């Protein structure tokens, strides 16, 4: 009698311990198609990056199932973020984030999801930016432009995205640091921003080096500053903005992967493993070089800290920009 009374709980406890041990060491592996959510329509920056990464992951056989890009455009990242949040508990969905996933919820009251609600997986890319002017303009460096802006306050113009975009935020930071003022004209697409610069209707724009590359080669554009810590490898003769004496915080444009809220540990570990191996592949390095991206690989607690710090920085800068910050 006594033995049975002891044996039963011991057996149960052992079985539980063993099965818990199994569960603990159970690894996650995708068993069906993987959904990759992006916030742009087909052809947008995030969309193209996600498709390229999906292609490379499959090519390098790092994932056992197909990755399908799902476009959820609308309200900047708002629709995509809320879609990703709805997928809580779903293990086969990930989202590709960019800087707007952090900044947009700060100014949009309707947004129901912030980047804090989602599970960070990895940061993959840091997109550098440069300041470009038309090749035949009189500005050879930042000093020329700043001097001209001082002489003609509010006369010169810059083309860019919305007022919460990096283009405008950098402009505000530089204006504050140098005591100048010039206008900002929003255009929804990069193509229009560039065509207005080439047409001489604006004097300046913040542009990614990859976009500018061909225009420079053709002799249409001149880059007068690199908005990076160190000079860009592809543009060794272009001084950074700090080298030119303008000390402003650099707003990074980051791209990476997030998972739905409260993603299980095995899922996070799986994806971290995949992207750790991915980051080392030659084809990814080639892709980074082709697009003149910086390898921004970051995961785990430093990634969470990066996102938090970025949120704080963005909130400050947005307030100064005059945008209505709602959270």
């Amino acid at each position, binding site marked *: 009698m006594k033995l049975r009374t002891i044996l039963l709980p011991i057996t149960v406890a052992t079985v539980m311990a063993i099965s818990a041990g199994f569960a603990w060491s159970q690894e996650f592996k995708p068993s069906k198609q993987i959904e990759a959510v992006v916030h742009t329509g087909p052809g947008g920056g995030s969309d193209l990056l996600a498709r390229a990464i999906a*292609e490379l992951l499959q090519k390098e056989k790092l994932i056992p199932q197909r990755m399908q890009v799902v476009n959820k455009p609308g309200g900047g990242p708002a629709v995509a973020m809320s879609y990703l949040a709805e997928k809580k508990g779903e293990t086969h969905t990930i989202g590709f984030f960019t800087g707007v996933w952090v900044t947009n919820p700060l100014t949009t009251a*309707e947004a129901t999801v912030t980047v804090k609600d989602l599970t960070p997986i990895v940061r993959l890319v840091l997109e550098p930016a440069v300041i470009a002017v038309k090749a035949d303009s009189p500005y050879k460096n930042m000093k020329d432009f700043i001097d001209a802006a001082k002489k003609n306050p509010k006369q010169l113009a810059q083309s860019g995205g919305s007022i919460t975009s990096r283009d405008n935020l950098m402009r505000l930071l530089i204006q504050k640091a140098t005591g100048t003022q010039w206008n900002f004209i929003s255009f929804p697409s990069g193509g229009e921003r560039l065509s207005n610069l080439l047409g001489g209707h604006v004097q300046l724009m913040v542009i990614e080096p990859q976009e500018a590359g*061909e225009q420079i*080669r053709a002799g249409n554009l001149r880059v007068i500053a690199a908005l990076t810590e160190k000079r860009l490898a592809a543009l060794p003769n272009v001084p950074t903005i700090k080298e030119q004496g303008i000390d402003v915080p650099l707003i990074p444009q980051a791209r990476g992967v997030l998972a739905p809220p409260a993603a299980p540990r095995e899922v996070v570990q799986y994806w971290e493993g995949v992207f750790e191996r991915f980051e080392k592949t030659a084809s990814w390095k080639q892709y980074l070089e082709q697009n003149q991206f910086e390898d921004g690989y970051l995961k785990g607690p430093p990634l969470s800290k990066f996102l938090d710090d970025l949120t704080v920085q963005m909130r400050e800068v947005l307030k100064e920009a005059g945008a209505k910050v709602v959270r």
Partner: protein
Amino acid sequence: MEAFDNLLLGFSVALTPINLFWCLVGVILGTVVGVLPGLGPAATIAMLLPLTLKMDHTTAIIALAGIFYGARYGGSTTSILLNIPGESSSVVTCLDGYQMARQGRAGAALGISAIASFVAGTVGVLGLMLIAPPLARFALRFAPPEYFALMVLGLAMVVFLAGDSMVKALLAMLVGLWLATIGTDLFTAESRFTFGQVKLLGGVDFIAATVGIFAIGEVLVNLESQGGAEIFKLSRGLRNLLPTLQDLKDCRFAFLNGSVIGFFIGALPGAGATVASFLSYGLEKAVSRHPEKFGTGVIEGVAAPEGANNADAGGALVPLLTLGIPGGNTTAILLGGLILWGYKPGPLLIQEHPQLFWGLVASMYIGNVLLLVLNLPLVPLFAQILRLPYYVLYPLIFGISIVGVYSVNNSLFDVWMMGLFGLLGYLMRKLDFPAAALILGMVLGDGLERALRQSLMMSQGDITILATRPISGTLLLIAVTILCLPAIRKVRSWRVEAVEREG
């Protein structure tokens, strides 16, 4: 002539069996995608990009471009037969095309659509071949004031969509303009009229709205009438199923109109094929001898916009290939494709990769011929759809609309919006408000407001910038003249009456 030599090089590339094959695949796929409402060439090309990595790059761009301009051929099919715009640029074709179908002339409408698309598409390729670089440079001179003037010109076309009541047309247009404001403001990042809905932050989906107003509205209106089993007459005999020689003669100007306007608007980044088709339709009506008949089933009203949206495809490739600047969604993906294959699209692309550019140009000539050959014989086949009894046809329209709208963003919300707009379309028909004016407002509203605010930012709030710049000043003058036309006509008719009374 240098262009001729280059073209020969292009044909030598395009006429290889593998490139011919993929050109055919591309245009067939494009036509299918264009016919189906909802699924667009942009999404299709994006989905097929991974497959192209294994292909020769010239072959790949030939195929993808085939999808791009092939879709412009197919878009008119459902517009004419079912009043469902297959592509957003085919909205204008619904106006007269569907009316022609109701009068038993579906075959003629479909046929002229194919022919106009061929003529304008070929002119577009000619333009791309001959004047692409200078046109691109000219297009750079278009700054926000010029875009604003262009949009105002487009809105002035409301005069030609007025029908009987100018007031109703203007009201409908204003509602359309309001609908265009819904969403996130580009400049201030504030939300407008979103009623707290996350899904409205991107604005009202254009396909949902147009399919709702046209297709669902049409179905609802017809539900009321107790028609017989066959609503649409269908002429017998193959001859009646294609446009007659007289039709072709009537459309002479429409072909020219569509080609020129479409190609030119296509070369302006951000303008769009829908704007081109509206402008072309308006111009056609302006110069017509029987403008009051437009909207009731006039064949030029089909030929002009259909030509315009095809020439626009050729025009859209101008900034893409000469400057590396994409003009719209689909060209943005083509740009992405070029980058993916390792090219650097920019001003030097044509010089450094002539076989890519000229191979593409030559394949577009071939593609347009292939499309004409494919589409014309299919006309009688498609026209048979109208022989379906209404209790099969209307559920079919309903079904295609719902699936099509859902497939754009995988969003059920869009389907609900479509339903709402269907009710709106029904109301508008009953109260005799022209739906086309509302759509015009929606299409142009975005661009108009944006261009105005950009212009004012450029000029520091000085509105005279719109009139003092030469190009925008001229366009605005034309627009004002058009708007004054009804008044001028009225004054003239008063004068005639006065003379008659005295005489």
